[in-house]
């Protein structure tokens, strides 16, 4: 039975060196923390694009909010030399994703675009992936959420509205990727071009701190910026090899 064959190939394939380079694309991001001002435009943009629920004050207070991208803030120093740094935290789409081995039903897996994807309607809600995720960027639908009419008219028809008991997370706006591929096919192009796609956060960002592109394409903007001297990946020691490279904020103490 072919399924059994697949089963065993899948088992070993992940360990093959250079496996991810062999993908069609490897979508990635570069976030320049020296540009990021923490204005949170990306947060609302994501909410609007991906039908994130309005959970309400009570559930928010229970840490049940759903924000695929959030701005984390870290203080250093004391008044008057206090400094506040922002870092946008979203799914890092790790190549060695801890969450992917976790799911008993393969609701989360690595697809041919190098995306760490989440299939909502396959999820049975064991929440293991969220426990395994070191970046805390997976969000669980503790309830089924509703929208006060007519707010639901804004919901994006390209994205499912998740029901209770389902895990969800940043998809790099995969619906946009799909649409772009669709248009590319219409134009008879096999591959997408640089700049065909922008996730909601990158598009909204007023300082253009977020750059999105294909890491497998050496002359793409992401590939080039990723090699910047300021580049780093969050929690590198965990060896999750994320798809998101951050550019450190320059701290210029002496002006």
């Amino acid at each position, binding site marked *: 039975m072919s399924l059994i064959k697949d089963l065993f190939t899948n088992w070993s394939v992940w360990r093959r060196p250079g496996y991810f380079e062999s993908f069609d694309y490897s979508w990635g991001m570069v976030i320049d923390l020296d540009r990021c001002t923490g204005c949170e435009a990306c947060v609302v943009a994501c909410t609007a694009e991906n039908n994130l629920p309005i959970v309400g004050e009570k559930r928010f207070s229970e840490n049940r909010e759903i924000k695929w991208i959030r701005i984390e803030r870290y203080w250093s120093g004391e008044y008057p030399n206090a400094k506040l740094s922002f870092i946008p935290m979203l799914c890092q789409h790790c190549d060695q994703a801890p969450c992917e081995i976790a799911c008993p039903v393969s609701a989360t897996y690595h697809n041919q675009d190098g995306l760490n*994807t989440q*299939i909502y309607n396959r999820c049975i809600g064991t929440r293991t992936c969220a426990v395994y995720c070191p970046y805390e960027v997976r969000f669980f639908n503790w309830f089924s959420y509703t929208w006060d009419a007519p707010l639901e008219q804004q919901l994006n028809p390209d994205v499912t509205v998740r029901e209770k008991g389902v895990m969800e997370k940043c998809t790099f706006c995969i619906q946009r990727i799909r649409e772009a591929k669709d248009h590319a096919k219409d134009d008879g192009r096999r591959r997408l071009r640089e700049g065909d796609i922008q996730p909601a956060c990158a598009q909204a960002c007023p300082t253009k701190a977020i750059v999105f592109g294909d890491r497998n394409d050496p002359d793409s903007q992401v590939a080039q910026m990723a090699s910047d001297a300021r580049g780093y990946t969050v929690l590198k020691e965990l060896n999750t090899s994320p798809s998101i490279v951050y550019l450190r904020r320059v701290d210029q103490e002496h002006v």
Partner: protein
Amino acid sequence: MSVSVREALGAFKPAAIAVGIALAAYIAGWVAYEVFFPGTAPVQPIEFSHVIHAGDYQIDCQYCHIYAARSTTAGVPAVEKCMGCHKVIATDKPEIQKLTDYWNSRQAIPWIKVHDLADFVYFSHKRHVQAEVACQTCHGEVQTMARIERVAPLSMKWCVGCHEEREVENGRDCWTCHK
């Protein structure tokens, strides 16, 4: 002294038979419903016959389902479209008069969906039409159906099976069809 298993079982025979009959009846009832009210071929508000249009008159599918090649949805023709012909053609037929009533009262026709995919499924008619998949592959021999009937199971296995057979690019990637 001791009781044999067979003997013991005997005591439970009537009970077993009763349960058996009950189950049989239950299943029979279920089947009856499926037979008399088939979900795959519901009764439509207007007895529109594809046999006449697609069969006899050989009208191209996309003449009415205009969005099939341009969009994810094939689109059901607007009442206006039907009236385009039926202002003059076959106006005496009762079904056509139904149509005319809808048109005169400026009401939409509440067609019943036969091929209904779940909300979490992304299906693009455009892609399939452009890949030159015949409509009949999924919708069956429509031109022979007096009342539209769903022939394909529209199950995931069925979709993926076709994708594999045609070696569709990323045909087995969940996100190709899910959203």
